[in-house]
Structure formats: C-alpha cells, structure tokens
C-alpha cells in the first residue's frame, strides 16, 4: 500500500523496513552498481571529464543566477514559435492549468511520458479522477501506474520490482498466460500502448533542458514514447520545473555529453528530441497546439537561499547509484518523489524541513554523491548546512540536540577530547573482556550492535603511540 505523501513521514520507520527487505536490497543494489560502473567507464571516454563537469556546473549556475532574465527570454522565444508558456506557483495551479488546457481543447485521451515534476504534482491520479483516459507510456512508469505504485528511482522507476512481479501483473492486466520473460512482457506493453498512441488527443512530456534562446524543450529517452507524444496528438503539453533552463543551444552539447553517461552509462540516449511549438505550415504530423507549463513549487525559495546550487540538478540519478545509503534502502524510504542524496536535500527544502527533518541524516557524508554529480553540486556540504539549520532552529528532538552539544563541547577542547577518549577506551575494553568483541552496547549505541559486533579498541590511542615513537 502506498502512503499518501502528505501523511506524517517517519524516516526511521520507512528506512528500517526497507533495510530489512532482502529482495529489495539485492535488486536495488544490483541495479545501482551496474549503472554506477557504466558511468565510470563512460566518463573515461571524455577528454577531460572533470573539466567538462566543472563547465556544466558553471553553465547551470549562470542560468540560475540570471533565471529571471532567461525565463523572460524563454517565454518570448516559445511565443515566437507559436506556443504558450504558463508559469505556475503551486502544484494545484499546475494541475488546474493542464486540466484546463485539456478541457478547452476537448481532449479525452492522454499519452504521458515520464516526468518527475508530474509526480510532484500528482498529475496522473488527478487526470484519472477527472475522467481523462490517461496512460503512462514509459514501460517502467506504465508498470507503476497499473500497480498503483510509486517510482523509486529517478531513472529506473521500478528498480524495486522483479520480473516475476511484472509477469503476474501483466498476466492479470492483459488476461494472458503468465510469462516473466522481459522481451515478451515488453512486446505486450508495446502492442497495448501503440493503440493508445494512435488515438491520443493530448501528449504530455517532461523536459531535461529548456533552451532560453530558441524556446526549445530538450527531452531524452530510450523507448520512443516521448517522440510518440510529440508526433501523434494534436495537443502537446510539456511540464517542467523553472530551473531547467540553459541559455543557448550550444549548452546542450555540454550537458548531453554528461547526462546519459552519468545516468545509465550510455554515451547518449537512443532519442534526444528538441521541440518548442506547434507544427509548421505544411507539416502533417506534430501538435497543432503547444503549451509549456513551468512550476515554481518551492524552487524560488531555494533560489533565494544558500542552497541555490542544488537547483543545478539535472536529475540523472548518479548520486542515487553512488550512495551507500540509497543502495541499502531504495527510493521509497525517502518518502517523496526525489530520493537518494539529492532527495535528502531538496525534499526538505521544497516541502518543509519540519516534516522531513530526518532526511538530511540519511547520509554518511562519504562524498560519493559529490564525486558522481555531473554538475558538481556539493551535496555533502549542503547536507551538513541543512543539519546545522535544523539543529539551530530546534526542529529536531531534544536528545539529539543534547548529544550535539556534548559532542561539540568535547571536540572543541583537546584536553576533553583526550579524557573522553580514555574513558571510552577503558569502558569499551572492559565490556569486550577477553573475547575482544563487544556484542551489546547500552542506550542509542545499542542500535549499532544489534546486527554486528564491535571489536574492542587498542590499549593505546594513536596519539599515545605517535608520542612514544622513536624520533
């Protein structure tokens, strides 16, 4: 059962449950490791991957620093192309605008390709409630839709499901014999969705980039459903966040070299589509009407804060794949649309640090996410800042604040640090006894020894050894 996102979020509960699910853990782990090693190999093909990441980060940062200017330029360009731009503040406004477009153009059937922002505004459910025949056309998202689930990875939405699950689901949905062969299952979905493509009134896509100068949307994919969305339906709506802008077409050259490599370990996705208006005179396919709906949804607040850099994110999923915490708990445990290190940051920033106060703790600060990020967002630094903010605004629990205070007090003084170290060493060695292993610790530390033993510390500290070292 999928919990409503607005319900009280309990990260401790959701993450413990996920960490205890062996099948989930091994599926997520295998998928993320595979994408991660693909990324490593592909980045090596570039002349200077690090310099390119730096440049990509600068381009995105520049666009954010002048977002007002580029948004106006984008609006003008889309209008020049014959399309319309709708800037909306909230999820509710976004839904109203999109449903309004559908109603005005008398659309009954909608083919929808993958869009994280549409998850943010819970669009598909709302369309279904309003009686529209809406279908998710990305294979993974289609599976998510018919199983009433939620995507658990930015790029691979059903990474938490195995083939047997999909086999049972399809056999029930299509009323066919069971098969768990991915090829057969894919063909079934292909046939079903092809019919939908052919008859759809309205197409919906997300955007990977918006080019301010030309008013073009850039959307990447492997399956061909985005291209179907921009080919057959007479109305096309693209939904994206306001932060997706890059200034010039040339910037796409830089971004596209990094996106697929960082994401799925491809040098480029199979399809990269650029579009930004209705079909031109004389063309026989493509939309007659084009709308670009751009959501603020808390982004302007982040823009005005010290976390502005986090808006550079191009949603490649590399930080998820690199993260030792994500690999253990998967995406659903993060309680919202965006998971992994970037989710631990932007979910509290967009939807309230009070409700999501535990998320910034879902990191060991190992720095793998920063190293993987194609636009060089310093995720660990922002996580620490956010933790600090949560602590100083007293949003966290009293015990936690007290622990931090004691810790800061001890770590702030070399004498205290040594005394506390000596006390701890004495206590742990006493607990370990002859065996040299500690299998139970008191209080909060008990959580650590619940699933593993702790070796006792050496009799003398590193400091002591260093001091007694012969000169």
């Amino acid at each position: 059962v999928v919990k409503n996102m607005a319900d009280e979020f309990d990260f401790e509960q959701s993450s413990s449950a996920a960490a205890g699910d062996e099948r989930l853990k091994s599926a997520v782990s295998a998928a993320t490791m595979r994408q991660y090693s693909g990324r490593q190999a592909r980045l090596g093909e570039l002349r200077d991957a690090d310099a390119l990441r730096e440049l990509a980060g600068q381009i995105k940062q520049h666009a954010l620093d002048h977002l007002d200017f580029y948004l106006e330029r984008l609006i003008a360009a889309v209008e020049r192309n014959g399309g319309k731009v709708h800037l909306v503040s909230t999820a509710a406004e976004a839904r109203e605008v999109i449903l309004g477009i559908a109603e005005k153009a008398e659309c009954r059937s909608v083919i929808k390709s993958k869009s994280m922002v549409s998850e943010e505004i819970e669009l598909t459910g709302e369309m279904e409630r309003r009686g529209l025949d809406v279908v998710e056309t990305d294979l993974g998202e289609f599976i998510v839709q018919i199983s009433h689930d939620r995507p658990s990875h930015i790029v691979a939405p059903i990474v938490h499901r195995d083939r047997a699950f999909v086999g049972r689901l399809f056999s029930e949905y299509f009323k066919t014999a069971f098969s768990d062969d991915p090829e057969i299952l894919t063909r079934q979905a292909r046939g079903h969705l092809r019919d939908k493509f052919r008859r759809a009134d309205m197409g919906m896509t997300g955007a990977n980039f918006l080019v301010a100068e030309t008013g073009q949307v850039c959307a990447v994919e492997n399956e061909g459903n985005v291209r179907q969305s921009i080919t057959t339906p007479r109305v096309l709506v693209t939904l994206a966040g306001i932060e997706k802008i890059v200034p010039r077409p040339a910037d796409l050259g830089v971004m596209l070299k990094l996106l697929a490599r960082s994401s799925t370990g491809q040098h480029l996705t199979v399809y990269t589509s650029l579009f930004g208006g209705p079909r031109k005179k004389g063309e026989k396919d493509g939309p007659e009407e084009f709308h670009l709906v751009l959501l603020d949804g808390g982004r302007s607040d982040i823009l005005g804060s010290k976390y502005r850099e986090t808006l550079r994110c191009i949603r490649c999923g590399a930080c998820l794949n690199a993260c030792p915490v994500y690999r253990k708990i998967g995406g659903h445990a993060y309680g919202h649309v965006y998971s992994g290190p970037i989710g631990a940051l932007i979910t509290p920033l967009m939807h309230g640090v009070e409700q999501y106060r535990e998320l910034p703790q879902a990191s060991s600060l190992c720095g793998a996410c920063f190293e993987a990020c194609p636009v060089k967002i310093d995720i660990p630094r922002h996580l620490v800042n956010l933790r600090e903010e949560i602590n100083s605004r007293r949003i966290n629990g009293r015990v936690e604040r007290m622990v931090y205070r004691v810790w800061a007090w001890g770590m702030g003084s070399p004498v205290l640090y040594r005394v506390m170290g000596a006390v701890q060493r004495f206590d742990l060695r006493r607990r370990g006894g002859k065996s040299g292993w500690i299998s139970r610790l008191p209080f909060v530390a008990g959580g650590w020894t619940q699933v593993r033993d702790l070796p006792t510390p050496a009799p003398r500290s590193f400091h002591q050894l260093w001091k007694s070292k012969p000169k």
Partner: protein
Amino acid sequence: MEEQAKMNERVLEKVRRALGRGAAIVDAPVAPEIHGAIAARVVEGSENLAEIFARMCGENHVGVEFVAAGEMSVRLVEFLLHEKVKRVAMSAGGLVSRLGAAEALRRGGVEARMWGEITLDEVYDFDCGVTDVDYAVAETGSLVVRASEGNGRALSLVPGLHVAVVEESRLLADLVDLFDVLGREETGSAVSLITGPSKTSDIEMTLVRGVHGPMRVQVFVVG
C-alpha cells in the same frame, strides 16, 4: 489570456526577489564560454569521421553501409526486397525521393508511398520508413532528423524498420558542432537525434530492443 500573463508575472516577480533584484535585467548576461578543447570528444581533421561514425553505429546496433551516389537507388531497392518489407513509407522532397526507388519497389511487389500521399494514421500500418537525414554525428553515431513538410516525424518512428539515407558531406564530428550548426539554422518545429533502435531496461535491467520506436535501424551513407 490576460489571466495567464498576470500569473507569469507573479512567478517572475518571485524569482527576481529571490535573486535580490528590484527590476528586470536589461543587458544580456554573458554565459560561460564553451571551449572546444574541453567539450569536443572528436576533433574534425584529426580523425576519419566516416570511420568513427561507422564504429559508433556498430556500438549502437545500427546497420551501416557506405554506397556510391550512382548505386544508391539500386542498393536501396535490393536491401528492402531482401528484407521482405511489404509497405514502405518514404520522405518526400529530398534525397530519398530523388533516388526514385518507389517505382522499382512497386515492380518488386512492395507498396511504396511518399509522405505526401499518406496520412499519419496510415503510417501505423507500414512496416518500414525510409527517411532523409539532415546531419549525422560521428562522436555518437546519431542521425539528426528535422521535421518538415516532406519529412514527417512518424516516418522514422512508427514503422518497425527505419532506413536512413545520409550524404557523407553531412557528417559532423561532435555534438558541440551539431548544436552550433542547429543554433545558427532554422531548426523547424522539431529535431530528433536517433542513436539506435528503441530499447528499454526497465524490467530487471534486462535490455530489450524495440519498444515504442523501430526495432531496427539501417543507415546508408552516400559518398
């Protein structure tokens, strides 16, 4: 529409405030320079573009063949007859139509129609699309197709087999070059980069080729 302009202005105002600006910027800001040396993976002149393109096509599971201009028409017909296609939809008004292969195909028992003669809906019942290509990118092995009056979007997307014909002079080294060129030209209403047959790995990361686009792609480079 007045309503929408007001909503747009409201969000723009919020963004300006977040950036600490009282009013809109007048002068265009200068975006970071893109150094070819950092960004380009393939540098034109130093390597053989056709060779790189062919290698990348192989990696992308795209069939590739280099054909002399005078032999292209015959080779295309031969290829399609060998593939036993039944219904072929073709780009109009470009290289493909100049090849004049339709007549020979009809003689071979294949229903060959130009984009101008069929509807979008009919394309769903064709098993092959033969299209013109505006550019090809060596770095990635991509085919770049601009939507136009003669070159419908559906042709390279809907039929199960996509056959592309591109002149060798249309080969570009790198994505950076491509977007340079596209930025300077009239791009039309849509551009698609095609880098292989459609595919998915959504179910247990198992690769399956042929989802919502073609199952197979073949490109002929005309020298």
